[in-house]
């Protein structure tokens, strides 16, 4: 029907037809898949949600005399330094190392990444290993994104294809990566934005792969690899969407181009810091099936309701609920009506898709053919004594 090259030609001539996935879903309902497939060239999707398996690679540029950094803190948050002499990796969930008697502040690596992107100054303290090549034992300075060489996000696990719904069936409040869960099924939290989420609109990852250009944190990024815990063999519905956490992607992108509107440090009470990130994926309409997949609605997507009161790897579930139920604000569990809140920002997810649409319409973002496919046959290997494979049924 169309090739990526033909679509890019239209983008460069500013005549590509670009719709957000929400516009597409609405129009398919009235006009049908075949007619719509002839009309639209590109569909944009977006999400804005906490993605804690994220972090930044930073290169400082050598000091004189030079230093081989072995331990390093950015605004008091430890950064990994076990590689090149002045290369650092600052993880999103790294927390402030509180001094004796000091209360741990609600601040972590995600906040420092946001501050650097916002061009705010960040204090750096480093301890080196003295060698003949690198005689300097320690170093302290203030850095900004303008005074460091490379500063790019390299996120091992982003863009989860579906996730879970958290509840607490126990009798004490729990503080989780989904926020506070109140006892006796007091509330429920879901974290995937459902039908607008990028990978639920391309369930078999046919339209993207290694090298695919994306919107990452307000700048341009790329799919680097399959993500950690990538589990494409998750059980799937007839529409090919998974019934729980499935595919993930590792993403990379220049943080110096990013915008703090789309990269936000966050903190979950009594759990720790994290990073909220806006990610957008543009789908080329290569054939009718692309439209059929992107037409999926919230009532056709499900997630498992998981009880966090049992702190085990495989927690008991209360069955599956649809995203249409979740977005109604209430779900029924064991006959009880439970309030549900999202954790992904549906508002900012929509804004990501709109912004990406504007980039494509303006000709500043073109599509890419994947360099290599994302493997779709990875099973999930837990670290159990028995070494058993998990099948997440």
């Amino acid at each position, binding site marked *: 029907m169309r090739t990526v090259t033909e679509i890019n030609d239209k983008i460069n001539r500013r005549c590509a037809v670009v719709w957000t996935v929400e516009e597409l879903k609405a129009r398919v309902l009235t006009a049908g898949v075949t007619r719509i497939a002839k009309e639209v060239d590109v569909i944009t999707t977006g999400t804005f949600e906490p993605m804690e398996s994220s972090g930044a690679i930073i290169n400082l540029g050598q000091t004189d005399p030079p230093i081989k950094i072995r331990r390093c803190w950015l605004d008091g948050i430890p950064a990994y330094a076990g590689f090149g002499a002045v290369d650092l990796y600052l993880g999103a969930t790294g927390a402030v190392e509180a001094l004796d008697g000091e209360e741990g502040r609600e601040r972590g690596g995600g906040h420092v990444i946001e501050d650097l992107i916002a061009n705010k100054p960040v204090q750096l303290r480093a301890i080196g290993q003295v060698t003949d090549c690198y005689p300097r034992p320690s170093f302290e300075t203030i850095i900004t994104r303008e005074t460091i060489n490379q500063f790019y996000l390299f996120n091992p696990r982003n863009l989860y294809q579906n996730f879970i719904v958290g509840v607490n069936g126990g009798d004490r409040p729990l503080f989780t990566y989904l926020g506070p869960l109140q006892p006796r099924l007091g509330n429920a939290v879901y974290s995937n934005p459902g039908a607008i989420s990028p990978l639920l609109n391309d369930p078999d990852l046919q339209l993207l792969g290694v090298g695919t250009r994306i919107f990452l944190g307000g700048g341009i990024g790329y799919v680097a690899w399959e993500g950690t815990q990538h589990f494409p063999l998750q059980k799937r519905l007839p529409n090919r969407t998974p019934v729980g956490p499935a595919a993930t992607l590792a993403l990379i992108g220049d943080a110096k181009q990013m915008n703090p509107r789309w990269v*936000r440090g966050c903190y979950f009470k009594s759990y720790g810091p994290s990073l909220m990130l806006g990610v957008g994926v543009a789908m080329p309409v290569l054939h009718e099936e692309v439209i059929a997949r992107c037409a999926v609605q919230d009532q056709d997507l499900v997630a498992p309701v998981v009880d966090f009161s049992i702190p085990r790897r495989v927690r008991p579930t209360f069955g599956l609920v649809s995203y249409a139920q979740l977005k109604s604000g209430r779900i029924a569990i064991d006959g009880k009506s439970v309030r549900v809140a999202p954790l992904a920002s549906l508002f900012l997810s929509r804004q990501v898709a709109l912004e990406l649409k504007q980039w494509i319409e303006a000709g500043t973002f073109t599509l890419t053919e994947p360099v290599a496919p994302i493997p779709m046959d990875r099973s999930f290997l837990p670290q159990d004594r028995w070494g058993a494979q998990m099948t997440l049924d």
Partner: protein
Amino acid sequence: MPVTYRLAKDFNVAANIIRAAVAPNQIGKLVLELAGDIDQLDAAIDWMRSQNIGVSLALGEILIDEDTCVHCGLCTGVCPTEALTLNPETLRLTFTRSRCIVCEQCIPTCPVQAISTNL
């Protein structure tokens, strides 16, 4: 006069001192958050007035920093009165102040620390 001691001992009212400016031989000012049985709160306030203590009331209010909020909606799940909701059309956080009972459960829930009280 040990005001907060009397409030606790005579009225079983807990007084959380939010601000205090008290100096010898001057009129002092205390900002207190009072918690207790509603009748005993009234009695405690009447007693303070009878002691020539000027009492003015300020109700706590929830404040939402629009520039910080990311409209994730996590707070809507813990709000017992549904004062905090997501607008189904715009998907933005909506705060209906008249429904808010200032239980403050939303404050620690907010992952970007956009919610506070005026006290």
